[in-house]
């Protein structure tokens, strides 16, 4: 695998153009600018080329051409990721948003087969008339694609009750980086043998591209009730969260927003009517059969009041419910009012540790003089501390990154994980060695090696390359000229953690 020279790149672009049509290949730097980041604008990498297949066969042909040429590539959905996972550092982006057909819908068996570029919200609109929904609901559901969901094993607020992407995908057809097309899982039901579908989900574009995905659909609940409980202290809201979970009730969603987040949202066009003087609100949704929901609603209300809630408001109708949700789902967008850049973490902690970890995060933010906004999936213990800042200010940038590193390390020390739904990508690569041993990381490298022996799919992401024993051995045996981690194709950044 060698980096295409500029002249080779134009030859490759021509050949890709023959497959997908010239206007679906971008090669001018100005055209490629829009593909130089995902939804984390702090990371920018300029791709060499971008190609957008419009049909399944075109996608296969593109992958086969790149395999023949030995060229690395990065699959990309809608670019709404929050880990820098879809960045291509001077290599080729394969954008899949044009593959957007809902191939089949089986109402009775509650499943659908879709192309990877189908947007979550569109699928949900399509199946809503049948009383069905596709449960995983990332906050970017209006833009993100099912293919991207599969790559990241995406979650969302309602995953508390309904589970994440891996619990809702039955099967997919995949084109491996070699160009070979394989079926993983079974559209029809259970099968024996290794769970290759499970291995593929969450592989962050390192194992190939999904060409179609068969998902399970869920019956819409009979009743949905949404509560907003507001608190004058973060600690009270955290303790109430733990108490609700410990009560055994499984809310459909249990979301947390702290004072700074509330005030940013309320000042934006997404204002939801949250009390601006509150230090925290919990957005709690219960769903299911009417009779059961009413009973649980009273229990939850009681837990909130006993835990110090100032006010518990139950949305009277769908309009009010949607408004309450809009504030939560658009909170990251509202942060755009504060500064040009946003950094978001995605650590998960045991749910009994919420109160003390939020206190730790507060202490860290004071120490570094940064404003941390907390808006997250409290019921899962999945934190999203985020800081709006200006990347042009080197001093501020440094403080922000130091604060975030300390926050993530505190979550790791609490027995947590570095990412609950956003993926490792580039952003969290440096933390992988804090939670996994060398042998565990090497086992991941070996699995990747099976799907992509040449390491051409999304190189440099997820697992630090130096953790891959066999590849390092093979690379040094070939000599430095061919050691892949030495080429500019590798997007591996310096390790951010000082641990």
């Amino acid at each position, binding site marked *: 695998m060698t980096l295409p020279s500029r002249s080779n790149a134009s030859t490759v672009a021509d050949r890709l153009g023959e497959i997908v049509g010239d206007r679906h290949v971008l090669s001018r730097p100005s055209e490629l600018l829009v593909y130089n980041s995902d939804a984390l604008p702090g990371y920018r990498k300029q791709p060499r080329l971008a190609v957008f297949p419009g049909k399944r066969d075109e996608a296969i042909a593109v992958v086969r051409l790149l395999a023949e040429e030995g060229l690395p590539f990065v699959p990309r959905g809608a670019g709404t990721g929050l880990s820098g996972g879809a960045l291509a550092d001077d290599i080729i982006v394969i954008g899949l948003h044009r593959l957007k057909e809902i191939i089949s819908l089986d109402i009775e*068996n509650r499943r659908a087969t879709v192309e990877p570029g189908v947007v979550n919200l569109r699928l949900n609109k399509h199946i809503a008339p049948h009383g069905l929904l596709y449960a995983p609901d990332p906050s970017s559901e209006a833009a993100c694609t099912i293919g991207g969901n599969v790559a990241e*094993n995406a*979650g969302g607020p309602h*995953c508390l009750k309904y589970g*994440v992407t891996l*619990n809702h995908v039955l099967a997919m057809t995949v084109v491996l980086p070699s160009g070979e097309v*394989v079926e993983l899982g079974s559209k*029809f*039901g*259970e*099968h*024996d*043998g*290794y*769970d*290759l579908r*499970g*291995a593929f989900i*969450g592989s962050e574009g390192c194992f190939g591209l999904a060409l179609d995905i068969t998902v399970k659909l869920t*019956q819409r609940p*009979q009743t949905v009730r949404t509560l907003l409980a507001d608190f004058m202290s973060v600690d009270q809201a955290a303790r109430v969260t733990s108490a609700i*979970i*410990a*009560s*055994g009730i499984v809310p459909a969603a249990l979301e947390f927003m702290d004072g700074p987040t509330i005030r940013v949202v309320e000042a934006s066009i997404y204002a939801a009517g949250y009390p601006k003087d509150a230090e925290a609100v919990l957005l709690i949704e219960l769903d*299911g*059969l009417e*009779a*059961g929901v*009413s*009973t649980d609603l009273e229990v939850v209300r009681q837990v909130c009041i006993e835990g110090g809630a100032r006010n518990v408001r139950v949305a009277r109708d769908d309009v009010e419910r949607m408004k309450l949700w809009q504030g939560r789902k658009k909170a990251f967008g509202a942060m755009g009012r504060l500064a040009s850049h946003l950094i978001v973490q995605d650590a*998960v*902690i*045991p*749910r009994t540790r919420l109160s003390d970890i939020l206190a730790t995060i507060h202490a860290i933010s004071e120490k570094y003089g940064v404003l941390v906004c907390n808006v997250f999936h409290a019921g*899962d*213990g*999945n934190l999203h501390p985020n800081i709006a800042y200006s990347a042009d200010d080197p001093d501020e940038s440094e403080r922000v990154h130091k604060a975030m590193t300390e926050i993530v390390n505190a979550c790791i020390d609490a*027995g*947590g*994980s570095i*990412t*609950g*739904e*956003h993926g*490792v990508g580039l952003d*969290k690569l440096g933390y992988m060695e804090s939670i*996994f*041993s060398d*042998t*565990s990381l*090497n*086992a991941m490298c*070996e*699995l*990747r*090696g*099976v799907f992509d022996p040449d390491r051409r799919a999304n190189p440099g992401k*997820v*697992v630090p390359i130096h953790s891959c024993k066999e590849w390092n051995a093979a690379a040094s045996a070939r000599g430095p000229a061919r050691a892949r981690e030495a080429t500019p194709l590798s997007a591996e950044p310096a390790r951010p953690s000082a641990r």
Partner: protein
Amino acid sequence: MSTEAAATAVKASGASHTPLRISGRANWLSAGRPVKAEKTLSLRDDSGVVSYVPGDLTLTIRAGTNLAEIGRITGEHDQWLPLDPFGSDDGTIGATIATASAGPLATSFGLPRDLLLGLEFVNGRGEIVRAGGKVVKNVAGFDLSRLLTGSWGTLGVITEVTVRLYARPKVDRTFVVSLGRGLKSTTELLRAVAASPVAPFALEILNGAAAFSLGFGDNPTLLVRFGGNAPVVDIQLKAFSQLARTEEVEQSTWAAFREMDSDAGSVIRISTLPTRFLGAASSILADTEPRIAISINPRRGVMRLVTRDGGNRDPERAVDAGISLDFPTDGDGAGTSVIFEKLPAEVWPVVSPSVASDPLSRAIKKAYDPHNILNPGILGD
């Protein structure tokens, strides 16, 4: 047996090329799966809690702990692991994950892959690998937990498991419905249940032979379990009672149902689209072959055929009975998986060729168990 001891044992076996049979409490050995091993690596004595904070609703436990013990430990905090694989609660959590075994509760709580949060295993080189974590949501790194689930010990020896727990339902009741000989209404009943908002914890339809062994007479019978808070159970029961005549039975019915496997000669699971079972249920249940106990879980899309005569060495009969069922299929039977759970040892190689022979699976096996010492042959050659 600690993880380190398991790692040492695997390493030694690798060095001497001595294949190992991996065993928990040895319940699955009677499944007759063909393992070509000279030594057994038993995790029977590696049991107990590693960490359990009830407020987190997660449990980390050594792989040799059996399901009965997990039930006891979590029950003290009014919690449970809603995993009830066919067989008995003497099975270990390690074996349950390794074999991806599920039972009636999978209807509402999912398969082992859905309840698993993380695990520790020893690969075929004797290296200790951790996958996933101990929190309920986690996408850090490639998903080795799912890869190991259902791999039958061929990729690694599972030594520790972290699972998600649930609060025990406040009310948990089980009912039977006798479907009578007529059966014309069975499909209608199932369609009505599917269309209603009723969401039972478990729902199984038994043929006459299966019902008889549970003491419900010899008519086809429906078993249904409702759980949750009192209003949720009441409303479902009310709705269900309008569709069929129900009679409440003891919860121990489920244990008896799951244990029908224990003296079986063969167990075959057939999985396909749920609607195909709806269409075929009546004709399947009308088959009065007394030695084959059939149960259908229409929500999961699974049917199990248990040949109850322990001396029966003719599982092809059961296989034929299953495959010849009148499923509307896409073309030549596409979309129906026949999964063998238990067969007489000598029959395995005949009816079940390798189930992990595709190039990706072979390459994974080679990477994780380069000396081919972990349960060789158990998934075929």
